[in-house]
């Protein structure tokens, strides 16, 4: 079209791209768009905030600290006694605790995200590679081999420090204790159970033989292949509690899923009444000022109870509204004198 001359080799291309004439949208904002925009965003945020807040409020949570450092605490006796100390925590539900109920244990001041704690594991070993049973990764130190240089499986600090308190919940009906059935299946991540963690191939049909030539982590009372005496498939690296523990927490205060209450009479929830929680108290936290809790909670679409998010949305939303008000005032102040003149 514009080609009047023979295009020469040196002549730059006459395209919108090379000539910087690309069609473009230049947002021409004005106060008339910005102020209502802020109001709209603010409203939206407040809307979300309210929804989140209400959702969160409807979630029932029961939290009990059983660290036992106070003298009146039921587990006080266990703080300085031998392993497998039992203590009982009683609580009362005044109304139905809607199901499905999730049972968590919580730890505070526990640095599972400490860097060298986090890397103190051997993922190859945990994926069932027997080569790493004999020679665990150096990251596992000082829980790589025991004093006799026998490799530890599973090696590393995380595995060694596995949480080993156990809980049993009893519903007291007419003075009789009825055990609330816990569901320990599927509490770990699907990828952990199916991909990341693999048991070594059975040797002579037993898992135990596969662990030959290794020792259990120093702090463990039982080797990995005997973690769950009741369910043979819940042993080795594929033990659900082990999987949950191995998934390191983000922050020093965290809770981890212990069991779900989904079965039997309690599938719809925990009815009002008295309950007693029998705790096998093993895990020491007092030395470093840690705390142990149990948490009963039901969940919504947004997970567990979380007031923070709803409030944060409300705050930011209101801030937007306030901002738009300020802008409106400023705008009026700057604009109307001009109009008058």
């Amino acid at each position, binding site marked *: 079209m514009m080609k009047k001359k023979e295009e020469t080799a040196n002549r730059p291309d006459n395209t919108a791209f090379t000539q910087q004439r690309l069609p473009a949208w*230049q*947002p021409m904002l004005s106060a008339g768009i910005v102020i209502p925009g802020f109001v709209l965003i603010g409203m939206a945020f407040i809307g*979300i905030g309210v929804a989140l807040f209400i959702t969160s409020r409807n979630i029932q949570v029961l939290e009990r600290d059983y660290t036992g450092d106070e003298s009146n605490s039921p587990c006080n006796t266990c703080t300085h006694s031998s392993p497998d100390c039992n203590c009982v925590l009683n609580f009362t539900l005044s109304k139905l605790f809607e199901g499905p109920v999730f049972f968590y244990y919580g730890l505070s001041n526990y640095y599972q*995200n400490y860097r060298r704690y986090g890397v103190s594991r051997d993922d190859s070993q945990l994926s069932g590679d027997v080569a790493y049973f004999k020679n665990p990764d150096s990251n596992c130190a000082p829980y790589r081999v025991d004093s006799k240089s026998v490799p530890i499986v599973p090696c590393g600090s995380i595995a060694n420090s596995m949480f080993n308190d156990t809980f049993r919940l009893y519903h007291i009906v007419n003075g009789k204790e009825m055990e609330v059935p816990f569901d320990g299946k599927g509490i770990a991540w699907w990828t952990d159970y199916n991909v*990341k963690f693999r048991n070594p191939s059975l040797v002579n049909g037993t898992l135990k033989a596969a662990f030959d030539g290794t020792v259990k982590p120093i702090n463990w009372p039982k080797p990995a292949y005997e973690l769950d005496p009741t369910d043979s498939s819940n042993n080795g690296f594929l033990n659900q509690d082990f999987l949950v523990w191995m*998934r390191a927490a983000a*922050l020093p205060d965290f809770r981890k899923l212990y069991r779900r209450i989904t079965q039997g009479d309690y599938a719809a929830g925990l009815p009002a009444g008295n309950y007693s929680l029998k705790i096998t108290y093993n895990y020491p936290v007092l030395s470093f000022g840690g705390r142990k809790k149990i948490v009963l909670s039901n969940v919504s679409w*947004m997970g567990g109870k979380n007031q923070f998010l709803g409030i944060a949305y409300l705050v930011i939303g209101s801030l937007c509204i306030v901002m738009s008000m300020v802008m409106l005032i400023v705008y009026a102040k700057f*604009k109307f004198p001009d109009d008058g003149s």
Partner: protein
Amino acid sequence: MTQSEEALSRNPGGTLGANLMRRWMLLKGAVQRKGQTQGGTSFSSDFSTMAKQDPMDSQNMDLSWEVRANDRQFHKRLQRRSVLCFRKGKYADNVVRSYKYSPLTFLPLSLYEQFQRTANVFFLLMVILQCVPAISTLQWYTSMIPLLMVLSVRGLKDLADDLARRRSDTQINRRPCEVLNSQGFSSAQWQDICVGDVLRLHADQIVPADLLLLCSSEPHSLCYVETADIDGETNLKYRQALAITHQELSTDPIEPALLAFNGSDSKILQNCGRLVVKRTQVEIVLNRGVIGIVVFLLLSALLLAVGSGVFESQVSPHSEVLSALRGDHSPAYRAFLTFWGYVILLSPAMPMSLYITFEVIHVFLSLLISWDLDLYEEESETPAQARSTVLNEELGQVGYLLSDKTGTLTQNRLLFRQCCIAGFLYGAMPDTVEKPEFPQPLDLSWNPYSCGGLQFYDQRLVDRLRGQQCPETREFFTALALCHTVMAERREGVLVYQAASPDEGALVGAARDLGCVFLSRTRDSLTLSEQGNTRQYQLLALLDFTSQRRRMSVLVREPEGGLKLYCKGADIVILERLQQNCIHRESTERALELFAQGCLRTLCVAVRSVKEELWEEWSQVLSQVATATRYREDMLEQLYNNMESELTLLGVTAIEDRLQVGVPETINTLRQAGVKVWVLTGDKKETAVNIGYSCSLLDPDTTLLQAEELRQLLQSPDPEISLSKGNESGYWGKDRKREGNRMALVITGPELVEMEEKPDWGKRFVALSKHCQSVLCCRVTPGQKAAVVQLVRKHTSAITMAIGDGANDVNMIKTAHIGVGLSGMEGSQAVQNADYSLAQFRFVGKLLLVHGRWAYRRICIFLRYFLYKTSTFALVHIWFGFYNGFSAQAMYENWFITLYTVMYTILPILSVAVFDQDISAKASMHWPELYQVGQRQELFNPWQLSAAILYSTYTSLVLFFIPLGVFHYSALDYQTFAVTVATAAVFTVTAEVTLQTGFWTKYNAIAVFLSLAMYFVSTVILHSPRLHAAAPTDYYFPGASLNAFANPLLWLITLLTAFTAVLPSLTARALALVLNPMDTHRVHSSDPASSRGTLEMQARFRRGDLHRRSSYAMSQGRGFGRLITSGVGLRSTAPQQGGEQTAGKTSPEPGHKLEQEDTSALRTSR
């Protein structure tokens, strides 16, 4: 005939650092005969005393220097050889070596150069740190791969450049020349020439070395050299062989030249200044900012390390788990390791990709310059070229434009435009001739000598001339054809003039085209063809031009026997020497004013009939004076003055020193943009001032501060105060009071020398210049041009840009922040050394106002944003440190850290940096004032940088603490946390960049979507179980992302975090909009034409009170008329100013000494 001096280039020692430079001279003249050996001649230098070889005559015996010409064996021994850094020998060879690397040195040299960049050293350090297992918080490949990429990309680029240089070197080195040996002249290549060789040169040859003229085939052993490659001037300079060699060799004339210096010793190379690596101001701020950030990071790491020490000593001993991990090491040692761990973790805030991306953007913006059709000249088919790709943003900050005049502002083409003869005005104003309705050019076919090209449009003049009715007209042109020092030569039947002054060339040429043809001259006669009749005038005396006299005259005897004195000169000089009752005086003065309005350069032409007795008396006195030894000059002056009186005015010539197209408009625009335009020229003051007016650098009512006035101002301790005082007291006149800015400084080379001696003056001069609209530096050498640039650089913080077209501008081009070379008809020297090459001066307007402004904006936005986004994501580690026992736990997965800057967030900002336009190119040109944003460094300065870092600190707080609020005491794990924060970070910085984008092309939109898509796709892929199975330690987040993305919580957190993070930015923008509702619309809505139009009108109107400008542009100073009139042309007063325009005149280098000693040699040999 031929001969030459100078040239060639290469970089000292042929090693590091310099650009390819070449200087050539085109020789004019023709070599006619072959000669024999023995070109013994006098040249000396401070460093060579050679065995005397061939005493020529007794006069030479007492000289202290000796020559060995044409003795290869002897000189070969002295040739400089270098082995590594050891050098032997005195002389360089003549091989152009502009390449830097040899196969052996490439790797070490290129690595050495690359690691001179602090950034690279920093990154190397990071890589090394990451390889130490005890502190490695990230995988080694997170930095190693980018570093290797940077190094290899830069290395390859250097290699490619070097290969190109080698190719062009070879081409130049292989040019042929003729060298003397025992068998006569044989052809050789320039690269094989060594010092002492005797060469024979032919007409129009290029000479890449310093030569000494021994002899030429022209009378007087004159030769003409064109030094376009050296100083950009196309008029010929004459060189004369030394007396002794001329006499010796004239009986059996040969035309050799003795090679005096070559290679890196040559004058121009010694004078060309060293190559300085240019850094832009933005880059300097950036580097400082980077250092600041690094210090900040180190400090943070230190504090975190202290925290770690406290944690290790207070908390972890109580925890069996943690104390076991600590092992036997003390808390202090742990803290030490943690420090380095955090250094590694925080180092992504200062990513390598910043530098790569920065370079990519620079290259692209440079390409845009070369792609621009508006900067493409159709005629010569030359596009603009960005030879340096690192200076783009500096184009948007130029405060001082220092321009060469000849060939840059002007076309170096003088046109005879108008004349006023006997009160009649002929010809049209230059403004109007471009219009198509104007009559056709004159039909000059009747004149066989006409060579066309006369841009004179008035048939009346031709009619009068041919019609014989107007004797004044004829005499006027006879005067023009007689009164000059032009040499005529027939080349292939065509008459060719060689003029030392372009003005003279134009005038004699005009006379020729109009039928008054100067045919030839001998020592004492001039042959003219007047309307076909050949007439011979006897040349009795030539009263030469000097810059004091500002006129020249010839005294001739007409064929009829009458004596006439023809005189031409500046109007003031001529008008005061006229007869009392000159009839055309008034009309002529009116014409002069008219010409001045048209910015034409005028010369008055006058005649005097001399009586025989007067001539005899005068010539007697003249011969007495000529032999006088004392006060000769004064007496001559007096004598000339006597003769040049009682003149009759013939008319006025008006010559247009043609400006390049669009120069006044461009300069006007630049001035409005706040760019100070200085003109540096080797020409004399009058010419420069004249051009200053015509190219609207000076307004008609601008007052010039010069000479004494200037000196007084500079002597006062504070020139600005005394200037304003002067204003108040009326000392400066009333005009200046009204128009504070209407002043310009005019300074000459000698004054500059004086200024250099007084340290305070430079500072005062620059301070003073800020109050003036322009500065003109006249009669400056190339070295001084550079010194002026240096002066500006030293005393202001502004960006300087030098523009020129000749080799004499090379020094200045290299000294300035930005050098622009005009690739006009002159040599390529300037372009070779420039950062940008343009075909026309007028392109500077768009280069600065559009490309420069956009580039500055884009790069500033890019840098601010880039540092913001990288710091934002890295600083999160600090806050996380407080929640993980200061253990240097990474907040993100390794792969995210590796890819965040280079993949997930790069495209949107890249497209902003490439496409962003705040206002269109047209509006940028219409509103030059907007350019000042760059000059004031408003978009990227330490404050802006601090603000960006502060903002990123805020953002990192938001990025960490909002997710923290949700994750606190939740059952969500670390990996979900990492993915959440990472997603929030990506969304936040993407949101921020969409706010920054004001110009949404389809590429911007695609980039935003693509980079987000890339984040999700590659995150999911990198977290895929399959990769984990393949390499568990490298892909340790299997399933984490899918799990997190399936959680609505992540999206709620991301939305809240991203919005909260950009809220300040959003609010600031909204508030700015509300507070300044008109701001954004101002440029778009207002009509650019209205205000500009009136301005133009005023300027036009004001031209009425123009001062007249009359001058004689002798670019060489004194003419060489004396040479013509003297018998042999070999006198002790051989033109000393001859070298004025060449590069080496004032340089202290050996070249200069050669010249001085040339003269002394002449003296002694007389």
